[in-house]
């Protein structure tokens, strides 16, 4: 494996019964880069994210976070080692306030999982970090609103914020802009650019403006295989990609 990689996939395979969803993916993410994963519907992008984050087990292959092998570990261990993810379908705590949602996300980083002998309010560091995160997500005025009562794009911001609260080195965002209007998307791109600074970002997104504007490198996944990896310009001019994916849309 490559010692400089932030995240490294080696021969990753996944099959459900006799159907191969992921057919041997090798990929290295450079620390600090913003890397997009694109591909037609059903290519296996979300499945790949599930495999990396520990939600699904691999059929074959290995995943490394830095030097640490993370394939085979449960999601909470993977998260604790420094990889966080957001979900395509908003996945927050609907009946809790925005503040409480973020505090639960921040709290874990302070080793406060099973603590029952101390009031959470006394951990001022947790409260401060939660407030800071609220500010950065521009949700400060919604702190006491229930997550279920937020607008859709606010929920998406919260979703991203919860992934980032654990101060991960690597962040996986699964279609963060899905279902957003043009303005909301622009706003979310700004937000992502801002709060993932210094982290390695791996993002699945269908909005090509976002993908080509935001990423340093792009990988194209088709039928469970990566057919190309490169800078946005390289990808734009790659004939295989044009044929397999972009061609369908530009035609």
């Amino acid at each position, binding site marked *: 494996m490559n010692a400089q990689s932030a995240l490294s996939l080696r021969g990753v395979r996944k099959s459900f019964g006799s159907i191969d969803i992921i057919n041997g993916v090798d990929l290295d993410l450079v620390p600090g880069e913003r890397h997009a994963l694109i591909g037609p519907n059903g290519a296996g992008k979300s499945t790949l994210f599930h495999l990396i*984050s520990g*939600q699904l087990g691999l059929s074959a292959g290995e995943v490394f976070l830095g030097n640490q092998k993370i394939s085979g570990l*449960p*999601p*909470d261990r993977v*998260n*604790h080692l420094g990889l*966080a*993810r957001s*979900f395509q379908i908003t*996945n*927050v*705590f*609907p*009946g*809790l306030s925005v503040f*409480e949602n973020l*505090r*639960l*996300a921040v*709290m*874990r*980083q302070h080793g*406060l*999982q*099973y*603590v*029952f*002998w*101390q*009031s*959470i*309010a006394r*951990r001022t560091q947790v409260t401060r970090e939660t407030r800071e995160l609220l500010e950065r997500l521009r949700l400060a005025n919604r702190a006491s609103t229930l997550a279920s009562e937020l607008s859709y794009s606010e929920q998406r911001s919260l979703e991203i914020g*919860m*992934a980032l*609260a*654990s101060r991960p080195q690597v962040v996986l965002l699964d279609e963060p802009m899905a279902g957003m209007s043009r303005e909301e998307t622009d706003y979310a791109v700004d937000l992502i650019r801002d709060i993932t600074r210094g982290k390695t970002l791996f993002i699945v997104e269908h909005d090509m403006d976002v993908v080509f504007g935001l990423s340093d490198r792009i990988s194209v996944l088709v039928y469970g295989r990566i057919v190309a990896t490169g800078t946005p310009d390289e990808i734009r001019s790659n004939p295989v990609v044009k044929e397999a994916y972009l061609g369908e849309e530009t035609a």
Partner: protein
Amino acid sequence: MDSRIILGAIIVLALVLAPAVLSPALVNAGIQMLIASLFACAFSLLCGQAGMLSFGHSAFFGVGAFATVHAMNAVGGAGLLPTPFMPLVGAVTGLLVGLVAGWFATKRTGVYFAMITLAIGELLYSLAPHLGGWFGGEAGVSTMRMPAFGLSFGSNVQVYYLTLAWVLLCLGLLYLFTRTPLGRVALGLRENTRRLRFLGYNVHMASVLVFAVSTMFAGVAGALQAINIESANYVLFNLDLSAEVLLNSYIGGVTFFLGPAIGAALMTFFGYVVSDLTTSWLLYKGLLFVAVMLFVPRGIAGLVQTVAASVRRCGFGALAASFVLHGVAAALLACGTVFSVEMLQRIFSQDYLSLARLGGKAWPAISLFGESWRPLAAATWLVPLVLFAIGLLVLREAMRRWRAAIEAATRGSDEANDPAVASGAST
């Protein structure tokens, strides 16, 4: 916030002063109410806050009670601990048994979790009569309260104060628990375990701990019961008790901290009063539960919250008439229900059958509420029908007035807020 503290202080003061004015029988009922309140709050930590519906919580209540009885009988009857500290035995037992049972039960969620807890409860219920050494067979195990620290614990007033002190202490601890990190994680367990897992939490371990905290306090409630009645019997493990704590908690409002305590206290008192008056008291309890679930699904505490919010918005004056009408409607509907239930209960009773046979008349008159009613007369059944009809009409009027008051207040506040909204949008 301040008004809440004052209200709490008044309630505590009333509870402290209560034995001075209550008859011994009512003091006894008070002890039962306190124990039921603690049990319901322990149950609701699991069910209301962590979203895990347990159908077998009487197991931990019972285990706490039996452990306490054995501890009281230990050392040749002198007791393992001085009597006031006996609930600690229930706490430790509840905690340990809860850790083991919880480890298995929380491997699954939702219906499966409920089924496992039900199975654990039923397992104890069917095993207990056969384990004579531990559970004393069908007769149970009895014990005696020993004097300690100059107190004899012979009168039920002393037991009342012992129970009150422990219940207040435990409710305080349970409340503080909700403010701790683990208490917050419990809310996350209820809301979304998947998200919790991806935030780096060990969901199973957190569930086991919350489960064990709940069973620990259930064990204390069981211990207090053992101290109070100086015995423990395997019927403690019966599903009845598990069902009762569940019903009490939902009637009170399972997601509110003190809701279950209120529900349990009221329902225990209701049982105490009504079971003396009528043999159909369980039916009334059931009817009350159904009525609460149908019309105020968030329970008594939820109702209080809604009403308080409405009063704040509209002012008490605007709603006063509606309050009175709601009260009148409830009274009329209750009277209609009671009349029907009591009448039917008497008609279908064994006694009535014998009476008819002995008297030689097919439908002898029934005496109820100091009157004689003929079961086949239209006038008899007109009574409940009229009560229901008037009750429903009054209820409709009460609800209409309520809505009108709310609408008036909403219109008023909209007009008042309009300029603010406009300026907010322009910035």
